[in-house]
């Protein structure tokens, strides 16, 4: 009898505890509703727009989106922007299932992804948010290589190189006898897709015997500790680790050019300078918060946020074109084959408009 009383008492206190938790939850949700959860709430001029914005997609674009969302919510306290990181591909699969309003991508939407979107009746506006320069890096102790041509990079990274190209002296005759250690992003990343397409010429075609990681800091670590190391990653990761890495210039046919804010923005760093995108669902544009957030992201006044996160803002001539696309809700992609290598965005946008 005594035992069962003990048990009951414990059960009571546990119930009380869970009730407490429940009460706290109810409280918080009550206050929240008072603040005005209602999506149909009128836009009051001083507190900005109201509504939820669901963003998901590329991890490369995430820091930009995070900065934008933070500032946007500071201006519009009643808007709620959330950003997920599912990768460019993962983001599109949610976007085309109608689960998100905006999908970030470090590459254009692929034809097969656009097809799924069309099947589900999801129309989208394609907008640029920033530029990134894929940076080829080596160990600082590498004193032999300053500049690599696209052909040399191709020779190193193409699928046929697997197990065959293992030494620097195979890349160029004047290079010394030093084992080649390769580091790159994982096959799910948009960075991998873009690099293989720009260098090897085919999306996803790469040798498999390199150290790959979804975390670019692992690539930094690898190259920084391997005298014969070579890797590629986003420009922001190079900038943060300048003292531990050496930046390669790339010869795309017009001489050796190093990635920098200037060469990435004006497109002279070719073919590894790439645009970053976000895709807005047309149906969601009727939500004032989604529209306002999309406008906020392409607004030239917010270009400093892009700079802050280590990326290059879209050039001045592109911003009005992007704004026009958004205003007119021009749906569809300007990259029918899903490739953004070596194209000028402004030309493509003008052609579509």
């Amino acid at each position, binding site marked *: 009898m005594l035992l069962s009383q003990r048990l009951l008492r414990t059960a009571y206190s546990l119930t009380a505890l869970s009730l407490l938790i429940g009460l706290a*939850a109810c409280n918080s*949700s009550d206050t929240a509703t008072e603040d005005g959860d209602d999506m149909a709430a009128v836009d009051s001029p001083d507190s900005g727009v109201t509504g939820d914005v669901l963003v*998901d997609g590329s991890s490369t674009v995430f820091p930009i989106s995070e900065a934008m969302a933070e500032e946007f919510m500071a201006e519009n306290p009643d808007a709620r922007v959330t950003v997920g990181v599912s990768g460019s591909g993962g983001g599109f699969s949610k976007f085309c299932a109608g689960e998100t309003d905006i999908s970030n991508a470090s590459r254009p939407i692929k034809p097969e992804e656009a097809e799924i979107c069309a099947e589900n009746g999801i129309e989208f506006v394609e907008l640029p948010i920033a530029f990134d320069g894929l940076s080829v890096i080596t160990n600082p102790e590498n004193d032999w290589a300053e500049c690599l041509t696209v052909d040399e990079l191709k020779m190193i990274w193409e699928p046929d190189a697997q197990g065959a190209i293992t030494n620097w002296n195979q890349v160029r005759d004047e290079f010394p006898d030093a084992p080649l250690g390769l580091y790159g992003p994982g096959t799910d990343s948009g960075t991998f897709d873009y690099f293989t397409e720009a260098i090897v010429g085919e999306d996803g075609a790469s040798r498999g015997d390199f150290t790959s990681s979804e975390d670019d800091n692992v690539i930094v670590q690898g190259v920084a500790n391997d005298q014969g190391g070579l890797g590629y990653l986003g420009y922001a990761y190079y900038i*943060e680790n300048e003292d531990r890495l050496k930046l390669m210039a790339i010869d795309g046919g017009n001489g050796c050019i190093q990635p920098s804010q200037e060469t990435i923005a004006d497109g002279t760093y070719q073919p590894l300078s790439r645009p970053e995108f976000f895709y807005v669902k047309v149906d969601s544009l009727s939500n004032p918060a989604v529209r306002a957030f999309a406008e906020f992201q392409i607004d030239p006044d917010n270009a400093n946020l892009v700079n802050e996160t280590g990326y290059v803002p879209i050039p001045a001539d592109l911003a009005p074109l992007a704004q026009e696309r958004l205003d007119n809700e021009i749906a569809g992609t300007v990259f029918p084959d899903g490739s953004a290598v070596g194209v000028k965005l402004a030309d493509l946008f003008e052609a579509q408009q």
Partner: protein
Amino acid sequence: MTTQQDFPSQEKGSSSISSSYQPNLSGRYKLDKIFAAIALICAWAGLVVLAWLLVDVFTDGVSRLTWTFISEFPSRKPDEAGLLSALVGSIWLIGIVALVAFPVGVGAGIFLEEFIKNSVIGNIIEVNISNLAGVPSIIYGLLGLAAFVRWMEPLTGGRSIIAGGLTLGLLVLPIVIVATRESLRAVPDSTRLAGFAVGATRWQVVRDTVLPPAFPGILTGTILALSRAIGETAPLITIGALTFIAFLPRGPRDSFTALPIQIYNWVSRPQQEFHSLAAGGIIVLLVVLLTMNSIAVILRNKLQKSR
């Protein structure tokens, strides 16, 4: 070993086996000491690794442990960034996991151990639960995505706290069931027989004589299961927990993030400052874990004493 090798040379011409026996005590004691030393190293290995981890994390992250860090939302500026939304999200998750896994797990454990023990159905269920306990956590994430996020969307609200809590609840359910059964099994059969002898029904026996002494063990098992749930990342990423979220959830159907996801996000950033934020996040997660584990220990001791 030594004695056998020494045997032919030393014992030449001896007459009886008993006199040839050399105890070689010093050799045996030496072996004993060597074994003790190895065992000691094994025992310390875990501790050393833990201490190393703590030192590493604390040197990186302790400077980040300010009130701002706990009370602010994530930010692009490392100095203003905090993990409030992740901490609250994790606490929400734990609450839901406890509400789901405790009653269902304990109920299943009692049923299997007290009501259908050694029956065919019982054995089938038992094998399946053991299998479930070995399923990788990401598989539970896929199950949660299909069942709770997509199929039960009208109820759960999609990628919500409740969907995450239910997924993690399923993940730790086998642990709770196994812990419950182990605790029940430790109760001597004589108490059950005594109950039946005075005419109690099976449920009365379970309620009044078996469950009370087993309860501390069940509680400990449940809290340890919750500790496992709080550190899980893979299933949450699969069901679509968010990374940047600068408001607190308004209810169980709201979107959320959790501590491990926030830590992972900070670790993968290029800036060094975010890496130290990640270390700070790890400390917070460790503190939450240790608090939960010590609650388990205190509850167990208290309940055992009161018996």
